[in-house]
């Protein structure tokens, strides 16, 4: 009689015991026998003053960025620091915000976090990042680091991150198509009107060739490559905060009219309307786009994609010749609040800013160096197109706003809505600008 009850009762106890004990057996594949950075432990009272320890570091990086670059940096660090190797995890970029919040709430934060630089103000103002001013703020390595990155990594005069990698936006033109269209392949467009005229000649070639390209469903691509056209025409786009007026500039209507005209005249591939950014980086390399705003990373990419391509690099212009602009983008690397390996994390930051890594990791892969004094190096000088992209740095800027995602990058945000109305609709431009201003102000003042 009693034996009947014993076994099921035993089973219940077994389940409960199993549940409680599994904490000891962490995830498979991550061998951490005696890791001092025990996850889930209470934040130590001594705070982030701990000195460099040994044991693996956890690093998150957002997906959809320059993954090969980050892989290379982590690999270089792991080779030089095998006792403090970094476990890199790519996090879906739309999940970064909630995941970090969950991590902080549960006490299991990663030691390093790479994020799109424009989110720097949002995270630092919310107190989710460690203040590293005292540890690296006055380091000479930072003196020549990309000012755009440093600016967005600074909040109320305290530093929260350093550049992880840098991109700038530039204008490519396809010299092969130029020749075919009877244009001078060494004379790129220097203002919006010239873009239009050159694009017209190229589109006339037919066979799937289009003179220009603007992605229709990618907010980020547009702020990167269309935004500078507005900036170069003297316009300002996003509001810095609630009191700042968005979309200010006498020439903005003209630029938007130009964009609409480019579409209406069929100078842009209609398939661009569906471009969400997933295939944006491959458009120019396909050889069917005559002129296109894109990033410095596309130099190496396009040549890999299409070794016969003959391309030229120039700066994104505005309405008038002589005015140029560029978007300084990329990622910064930060330390989430509550990390117990602050000293090691900062060591990583020094590592990636060091001369050796700047040249042998960044430049060797055809990427920009994050320190301007390292831009003149043997690898960059090998490829004149890569070297040409460096010219964008002095005229580049990075938007600074606490609500970049909701205002600009969000697929449901006012920036993309405005552009889609401009590109594909018939609503009067003034009306579009007015309603966008309203929407942006509402978001900035939430």
């Amino acid at each position: 009689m009693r034996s009947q009850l014993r076994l099921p009762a035993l089973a219940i106890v077994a389940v409960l015991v199993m549940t409680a004990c599994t904490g000891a057996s962490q995830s498979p594949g991550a061998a951490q026998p005696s890791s001092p950075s025990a996850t889930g432990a209470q934040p130590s009272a001594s705070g982030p003053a701990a000195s460099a320890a040994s044991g693996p570091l956890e690093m998150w990086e957002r997906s959809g960025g320059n993954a090969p670059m980050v892989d290379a940096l982590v690999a270089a660090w792991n080779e030089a620091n095998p006792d403090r190797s970094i476990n890199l995890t790519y996090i879906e970029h739309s999940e970064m915000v909630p995941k970090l919040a969950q991590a902080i709430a549960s006490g299991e934060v990663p030691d390093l976090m790479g994020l799109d630089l424009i989110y720097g103000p949002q995270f630092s103002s919310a107190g989710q990042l460690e203040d590293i001013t005292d540890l690296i703020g006055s380091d000479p390595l930072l003196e020549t680091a990309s000012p755009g990155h440093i600016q967005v990594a600074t909040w109320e005069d305290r530093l929260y991150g350093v550049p992880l990698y840098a991109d700038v936006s530039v204008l490519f033109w396809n010299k092969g198509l130029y020749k075919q269209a009877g244009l001078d392949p060494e004379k790129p467009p220097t203002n919006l009107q010239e873009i239009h005229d050159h694009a017209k000649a190229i589109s006339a070639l037919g066979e799937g060739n289009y003179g220009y390209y603007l992605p229709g469903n990618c907010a980020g691509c547009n702020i990167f490559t269309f935004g500078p056209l507005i900036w170069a025409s003297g316009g300002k786009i996003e509001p810095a905060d609630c009191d700042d007026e968005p979309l200010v500039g006498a020439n903005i209507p003209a630029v938007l009219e130009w964009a609409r005209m480019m579409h209406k005249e069929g100078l842009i591939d209609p398939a661009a309307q569906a471009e969400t950014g997933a295939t944006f980086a491959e458009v120019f390399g396909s050889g069917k786009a005559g002129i296109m705003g894109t990033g410095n990373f596309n130099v190496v990419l396009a040549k890999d994609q299409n070794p016969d391509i003959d391309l030229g690099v120039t700066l994104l212009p505005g309405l008038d010749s002589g005015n140029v602009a560029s978007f300084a983008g990329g990622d910064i690397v930060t330390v989430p609040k509550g990390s117990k390996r602050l000293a090691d994390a900062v060591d990583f930051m020094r590592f990636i800013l060091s001369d050796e890594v700047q040249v042998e990791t960044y430049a060797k892969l055809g990427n920009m160096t994050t320190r301007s004094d390292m831009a003149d190096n043997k690898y960059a000088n090998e490829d004149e197109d890569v070297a040409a992209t460096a010219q964008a740095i002095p005229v580049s800027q990075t938007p600074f706003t606490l609500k970049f995602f909701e205002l600009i990058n969000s697929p449901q945000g006012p920036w993309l809505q405005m552009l889609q109305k401009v590109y594909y609709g018939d609503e009067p431009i003034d009306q579009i600008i007015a309603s966008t201003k309203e929407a942006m102000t509402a978001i900035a003042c939430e």
Partner: protein
Amino acid sequence: MYAGKRNRWVGLLFLAPALLFVLVFVAYPFGQMVWVSFNSWTLITPPRYVGLDNFGRAFADEQFWDSLAYTIKYTVLITPILMVGGYLVALLVAPNTPLRRFTRAVVFIPVVIGLGASSFLWYWLFSANYGLVNRLLIDLGLVERPILWLGTNADLSTWAIIVSVVWKVLGFGMILFVAAIQAIPSEVNEAAVVDGASPWQRVARITLPLTMRTVLLVTLISVIGSLLAFDQFYIMTAGQPFNQTATSVFWIYQNSFPFLKLGYGAALSLILAGIILLFTVVQMALTRRSAS
């Protein structure tokens, strides 16, 4: 043998693991969710009690009602296709010839692969430039340039998703309908043949009424599943364009995760669960009535 007071406790003991599990891992988080719905909480800042504010906001939230309307529209579009299509296919493959049995097995294959994998698969097939659907349409001369299926036009996106889900779950209804059809005693059908009824008359007058209970059950399962649809929308359109293909659960997800409005997301979940519960009760009442 099972009667008696002691056996009541034995039974409870056998039920205990399941009860404990559901209590700890379903009921308790659910209770927390209910509590959270009365608060405003972004995880980083402590929860702040707001009473029924979140529920009030839900009623004023245009996107919530838009998503609900869209979810219902999706359900209303896909359910008849699944039921009628599933039933027709069931009628086709009910006889136990080798070919029909083979067809049954094949149509059921998409059911066993995951909704996630299926959605990624169709995400590729419907890709404007890289997908085979457009390639086929262009090769057949039906369209001139690639159709922008996903993410640009709400209706096209909806139909693309419907195609992918129908492909995936048609077999589920089919199998259940086949079982119900085969359970009809053959004498009934034979008698109708003798009486001179045509095949379609037999379906309408005999097969359908005798399998109605199964049809209603499958419809119920299908409708609940459609009202709670999420994966395929997250993967194929992410609610694009402009949240026009955002189902109710997708909107709940948006609020709970990217927006970190946990209290509001919880309130929305409760409202949605309430709506589904209401619908389930109504449908079950209908089922009981028609079974008699």
